């Protein structure tokens, strides 16, 4: 039987939507013989989106060489189709959800900091372990908790109640959500990712980032589950829980190890020290993606 709250959400008419062009791009990306031209023309149909994608492609997060990437065509040539689709996905989801207002703005800000930090940390883990997840670990990290936005927006009081409960009991946010709302942000995020037609790995990460053993995309989900914990350990947390943990005892860790990745050689202390100042990078990412900046950019 489907949970009450999911039924309610299913019938909400004012749920945020994705820009139609983004939906189209993701659809295109699934077809085997899509061309660079198809994708770039499609994104161009939504000029603000195209501008944001280009801006992101030129930011320190993606740019490798010294040359300006001035067209989407060039971006795809230089970065690859996958990376441009990753950027389009992140930028459009963040634009759709990031502009939503909440009664508790301060929590919203923390939420985005947490998500971006998780994405950035996931990317570092990918690099360190040479997993070659091709940026999907970053998008997965960025979007793993999107269910929380919906909960915060449509069930604000109960969500806040769950937040207090998780602080009081020092339990995880999803346990508290389950108790107060009868559903978790993972289920809601999974529902939203499917409704929006986001790539399947994103739906998977949303649903399973606290139980990577159940995931289909085990490597991406495991990396995100670890990155999520590390982001919290840096006090970049959006739930109330500030639990301590042993990374080597985590499911995600075991899964990656079983897959043959050299987990024992990772210098965990060093990774932890390195992410000490990830806050700066998070801020940079936010300023790259924020609307105001984009407008200033356009007027300049």
């Amino acid at each position: 039987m489907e949970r009450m709250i999911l039924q309610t959400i299913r019938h909400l008419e004012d749920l945020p939507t994705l820009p139609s062009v983004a939906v189209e791009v993701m659809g295109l990306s699934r077809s085997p013989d899509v061309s660079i031209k198809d994708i770039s023309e499609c994104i161009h149909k939504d000029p603000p989106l195209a501008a944001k994608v280009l801006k992101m492609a030129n930011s320190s997060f993606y740019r490798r060489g010294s040359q300006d990437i001035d067209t989407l065509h060039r971006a795809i040539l230089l970065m690859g189709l996958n990376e441009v689709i990753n950027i389009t996905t992140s930028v459009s989801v963040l634009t759709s959800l990031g502009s939503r207002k909440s009664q508790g703005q301060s929590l919203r800000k923390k939420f985005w900091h947490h998500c971006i930090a998780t994405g950035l940390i996931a990317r570092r883990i990918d690099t360190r372990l040479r997993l070659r997840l091709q940026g999907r670990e970053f998008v997965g990290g960025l979007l793993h908790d999107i269910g929380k936005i919906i909960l915060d927006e449509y069930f604000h009081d109960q969500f806040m109640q769950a937040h207090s409960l998780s602080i009081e009991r020092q339990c995880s946010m999803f346990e508290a959500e389950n108790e107060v709302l009868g559903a978790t942000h993972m289920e809601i995020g999974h529902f939203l990712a499917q409704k929006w037609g986001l790539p399947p790995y994103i739906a998977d990460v949303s649903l399973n980032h606290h139980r990577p053993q159940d995931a289909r995309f085990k490597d991406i989900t495991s990396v995100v589950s670890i990155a999520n914990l590390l982001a919290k350990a840096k006090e970049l947390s959006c739930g109330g829980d500030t639990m301590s943990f042993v990374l080597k005892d985590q499911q995600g860790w075991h899964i990656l190890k079983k897959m043959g990745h050299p987990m024992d050689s990772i210098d965990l202390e060093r990774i932890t020290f390195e992410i000490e100042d990830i806050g700066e990078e998070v801020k940079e990412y936010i300023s790259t993606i924020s609307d105001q900046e984009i407008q200033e950019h356009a007027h300049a």
Partner: protein
Amino acid sequence: MPMPEYLNTSQPGMPDEIFRLLRDFIYEHSGIFFSDNKKAQLENRLALRLKMNNLPDFDKYYYMLKYDPQASRELRALFDSVTTNETSFFRSPPQIQAFQEKALPEILEKRAAQGEKILRLWSAGCSTGDEPYTLGMVVREVLGEKTPEWDVKIFASDISEKALKSARAAVYNDYTLRSVPPDIKKKYFIQEGSQFRVCDDVRMLVELQYLNFNDDKRVKLMRGFDIIFCRNVLIYFDDAAKKRFVSQLYDNLNPGGYLFIGHSESLHNISRAFKLVHFPGALGYKKE
């Protein structure tokens, strides 16, 4: 750029061979290692020892350390001058918080369940006492009214007599108290003019003693600790000395006990015995 000879009148230079001999001597006796790029630092620090002993150059100083039967007293002065005693109350607050909110309650709960209300902490390399007294304050805060039910001891040791002397006096200036929360400052310090004295309730928990970490026999005797703080001490040791000492610390801990090292120090290449625990904003090492 090397300093012109004529400007360098205050000190006799330290020839490379003597630097190496002294460096090895210090390392052998304390585990503190001066790498080649720290030669100038060692030279500066030992300059005063030359003066105090009325010696013309570093050769003579080395021979005195090595062959003079009276050298053991000089050895302690030497340790005083080669160690950095930099410390403060509530240093690295996230670590103190991890101790206060996670590690300590966990240990207390376990002990209480076992029916033995005994708590043993060790501040290894306690310098002027800021760290062990901080731990004492936190323990009192956490135990609250239950303090009298518990047998608490915080051992605090250092190789520097000078630092230990300040620790015994337990009087501090405002600057070393800069991270102390205001209510804690009010509760556990007695203001004397511009100075602050640690109150007796906290002082009585702390037992100060001279201990050289290189003295394996005595270090072995430090047994049965629940939590060890050995922060900003290992940085002076080279890898071999670190490995030896850290494996000793492991043995000094009770099962389930924690080791905290300096907030940017790592045991990654030093020991695999511990379990690395991520606390909010801080790392700890657990013995299982």
